[in-house]
């Protein structure tokens, strides 16, 4: 779960990590209330969960109230890579002398946290690595032990960080690492980490990505997730313990399956056959009739979907249970074509039930055959 910038700043502030302060507004009403209360110049930063907002006009400057309101209005009406701007972050403008980079993230290969520091920042870390390979310190850390002083020392020495920044730097490292651990971060990044005109270090922009598996112990973040989720089908599916995955806005097929692997295999074969999947629903284990019905309803409620491919490999799951879910849901997806591949316990009984259901349902024998039937249905 990638947090929006303002939320990352809230966490920085909570940990007393020096960062730029600023208001966040979620509507024109809120913005209007700030009239006469702001210190100018300030920055308007569109809060969207995507990169490249600067180029798309999502970062603006204002030198007075009227400019703030005018630019704020335009920003709320803007879409950045299809995402509406629900919040604008309004930090003060800062004079900066230097931009650096600092992050803690996960090294999947070594299965350890890694600290990455460069005194050259402000651009993506890959770009820094390309331009200044000698100015990057990457240190693998023991899994979840306290951050040792020698690690920070090594990073500073290796990159030749100026002496007068070192005391601030050590403090920021420790605080960012505490955030990384406490908040179950996949990534805790400050970029740029700046030196202001008083020679103090400060986080100008931050990225925090929190492990979805840990959200059960971060209530505030879980609430935030549903609040900013643009695709309403995701929280809707979550209510039934289903995972809704948007795939491609150009597609017209929804894949429903009982496992991530099978969904990927289905997408691979469907794409190879020249068709496009627009979304997928993962039932996970325990595909009960109720959840089958809900998954069909949710898939069909996506206006892009005209065909659903339900690929169930039961094993222990009972096919008659699945079939009953289809039977119960038939009224909810009447306009949508359905291709079902069913394998598992009580398969015959399941197929019998489906044969008795009205509507456009085709039965496939195996995944390959299922994709062929899809192609016939969609005349590809």
């Amino acid at each position, binding site marked *: 779960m990638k947090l929006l910038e303002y939320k990352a700043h809230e966490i920085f502030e909570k940990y007393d990590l020096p960062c730029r302060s600023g208001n966040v507004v979620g509507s024109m009403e809120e913005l209007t209330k700030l009239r006469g209360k702001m210190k100018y110049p300030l920055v308007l930063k569109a809060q969207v969960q995507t990169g490249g907002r600067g180029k798309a006009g999502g970062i603006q400057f204002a030198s007075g109230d009227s400019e703030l309101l005018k630019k704020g209005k335009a920003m709320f009406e803007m879409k950045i890579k299809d995402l509406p701007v629900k919040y604008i972050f309004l930090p003060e403008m800062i004079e900066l002398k230097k931009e650096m980079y600092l992050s803690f993230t996960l090294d999947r290969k070594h299965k350890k946290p890694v600290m990455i520091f460069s005194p050259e920042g402000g651009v993506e870390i890959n770009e820094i690595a390309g331009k200044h390979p000698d100015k990057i310190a990457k240190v693998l850390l023991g899994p979840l032990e306290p951050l040792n002083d020698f690690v920070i020392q090594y990073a500073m020495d290796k990159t030749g960080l100026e002496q007068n920044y070192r005391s601030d730097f050590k403090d920021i490292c420790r605080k960012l690492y505490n955030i990384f651990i406490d908040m179950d971060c996949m990534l805790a990044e400050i970029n740029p980490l700046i030196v202001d005109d008083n020679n103090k270090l400060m986080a100008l922009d931050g990225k925090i990505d929190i492990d979805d598996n840990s959200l059960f112990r971060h209530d505030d973040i879980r609430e935030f997730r549903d609040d900013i989720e643009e695709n309403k089908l995701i929280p809707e599916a979550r209510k039934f313990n289903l995972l809704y995955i948007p795939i491609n806005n150009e597609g017209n097929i929804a894949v429903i399956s009982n496992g*991530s692997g099978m969904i990927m295999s289905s997408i691979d074969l469907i794409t190879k056959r020249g068709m496009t999947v627009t979304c997928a629903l993962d039932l996970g284990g325990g595909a009960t009739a109720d959840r089958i019905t809900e998954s069909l309803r949710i898939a069909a409620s996506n206006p892009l979907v005209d065909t659903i491919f339900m690929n169930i490999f039961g094993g222990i799951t009972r096919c008659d249970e699945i079939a009953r879910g289809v039977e119960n849901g038939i009224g909810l997806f009447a306009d949508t074509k359905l291709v079902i591949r069913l394998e*598992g316990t009580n398969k015959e009984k399941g197929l019998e039930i489906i044969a008795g259901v009205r509507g456009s349902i085709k039965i496939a024998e195996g995944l390959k055959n299922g994709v062929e039937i899809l192609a016939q249905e969609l005349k590809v």
Partner: protein
Amino acid sequence: MSFFIDENTKLIVQGITGREGTFHTEQMLEYGTKVVAGVTPGKGGGEVLGVPVFNTVMEAMEETDANATLLFVPPKFMYKAAYEAIISGIPLVITIAEGVPVHEMLKLHHLAKEKGCRLIGPNSFGVISPGKAKAGFMAHRIFMPGNVGIMSRSATNCYETVFLLKQKGIGQSTVVGVGGDMVPGSTFADILPFFENDPDTKIIVLIGEIGGSEEELAAAYIKEHITKPVVALIAGKNVPNDTSMGHAGAIVSPDGEGSAEKKEAELRNSGVHIAEGTEDLVEILADLL
């Protein structure tokens, strides 16, 4: 000969008193697995399906000589239960739970290595040596004894493969669910040497998917150490980058790291046969046999 588990394995089920734990214990007993003990803190002294229940793994080991444990424990309690098992000195820990916090898995991954414990999973269907024993929730009816060794990140892609193999009369030596989470207890490269040294395994199948670098690390290991033929399938090549799938581990970063193309190229470079899908995989296997 099998590795990890066989008809002599004495298995503990942690979480045996839960609904899933009880259901699958019954399935395993029916298959012939020696489930010798259950562990549920606070339920010690009881019995489930004739299997004695203990409060701790340590006591269960002392009383029953158990040498493996299977965890039917919800993800938020998985760390505690697996930690207890590893520290108690049991040599094999198999974890089923999907969605274990990544930071906790980092700790467990290294702790298991340090203590010489073989940790399988999480987000795994378990391990099966067909005809001998199973420790997990896999639909055992589709498996049959034979000489293909399989390890898979995905349960469903593995079932699909095994199902198609059965139609061709091809069985398996040992099948291991590596699991779909971001940090597995044991990686493909960790498990490869067991297949290489297993006289029952003639061909090794690796069912991987996008995300991470386990397939690349396996490719490097295969090049140096594996003499048996290897066939691989990488699922998810047509999933857009930066899309989170149900498997937490299956994500290609925006810069393309973890892509199927890279994994396939490195595996090919190590002499591995690459399959386009499960049906293709089974045909390649049939030809090789």
